[in-house]
């Protein structure tokens, strides 16, 4: 894991399957991701694109991990000139159910 990193944890009343769908289905992301539609077949090594509501591809990368409905990771970089000297970032999503959270607490 390279620095810097930003981690955000939240708890959502849903199922891992629905959450996975919301993270990977363009129709869903367009609803909550300010109009951005994600496009990929979500296979490891496949390309990944973020398409804005005007049809322009704003960000692109590759799928690094895909283990539905638990773990998803992809690289991405904004394609505008402003970011041309930057390295792609890596985003990783990990979903845990409350049952697993209970188990983890019990094991601690």
């Amino acid at each position, binding site marked *: 894991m390279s620095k810097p990193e930003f981690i955000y*944890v*939240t*708890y959502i009343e849903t199922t891992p399957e629905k959450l996975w769908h919301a993270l990977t289905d363009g129709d869903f992301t367009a609803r909550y991701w300010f109009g951005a539609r994600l496009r990929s077949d979500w296979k490891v090594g496949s390309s990944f694109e973020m398409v804005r509501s005007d049809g322009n591809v704003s960000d692109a990368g590759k799928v690094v991990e895909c283990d539905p409905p638990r773990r998803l990771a992809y690289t991405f970089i904004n394609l505008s000139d402003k970011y041309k000297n930057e390295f792609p970032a890596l985003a990783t999503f990990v979903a845990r159910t*409350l049952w697993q*959270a*209970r188990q983890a*607490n019990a094991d*601690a």
Partner: protein
Amino acid sequence: MSKPEFTYVTYIETTPEKLWQALTDGDFTERYWFAHRAASDWNVGSNYQFTLDGEKRLEGKVLISDPPRKLAYSWNGCSEEVRRERTSRVTFDLEPRGKVVKLTMTHDDLDEAGVTFRGIAEGWPMVLASLKSFLENGQILDIPRPVRAHEAVRA
């Protein structure tokens, strides 16, 4: 601002006034804050405390009280394992953004190697996710209350 610090930002569909009440009114905190009940007059310099089942769990002084925009208090855990740790500080900034409120919670002045730091890093996302659900849907999240090792041993 001193290190280490823990910052959590969330956007809640509510008003700053309702959010302020949810942060300061014991009847509200008891709902979403895993049964912890807040008590204070929330004037600067006043004491406050959080109790769980009538037992004091957390106490400190009100440092900033500017309703409904900014609230800060010192933070002293009452359990045996954290009693010797330094007093930390919690600050809530409430910033209206259209129909939602941007809530920024900063917990700083923490002991880097302390139990408090580990505990609050686990606890704040649960409490604030539950608070968001409570204000937006009237329902708290059914998250199992965090079980810490020493509590499991005692129980």
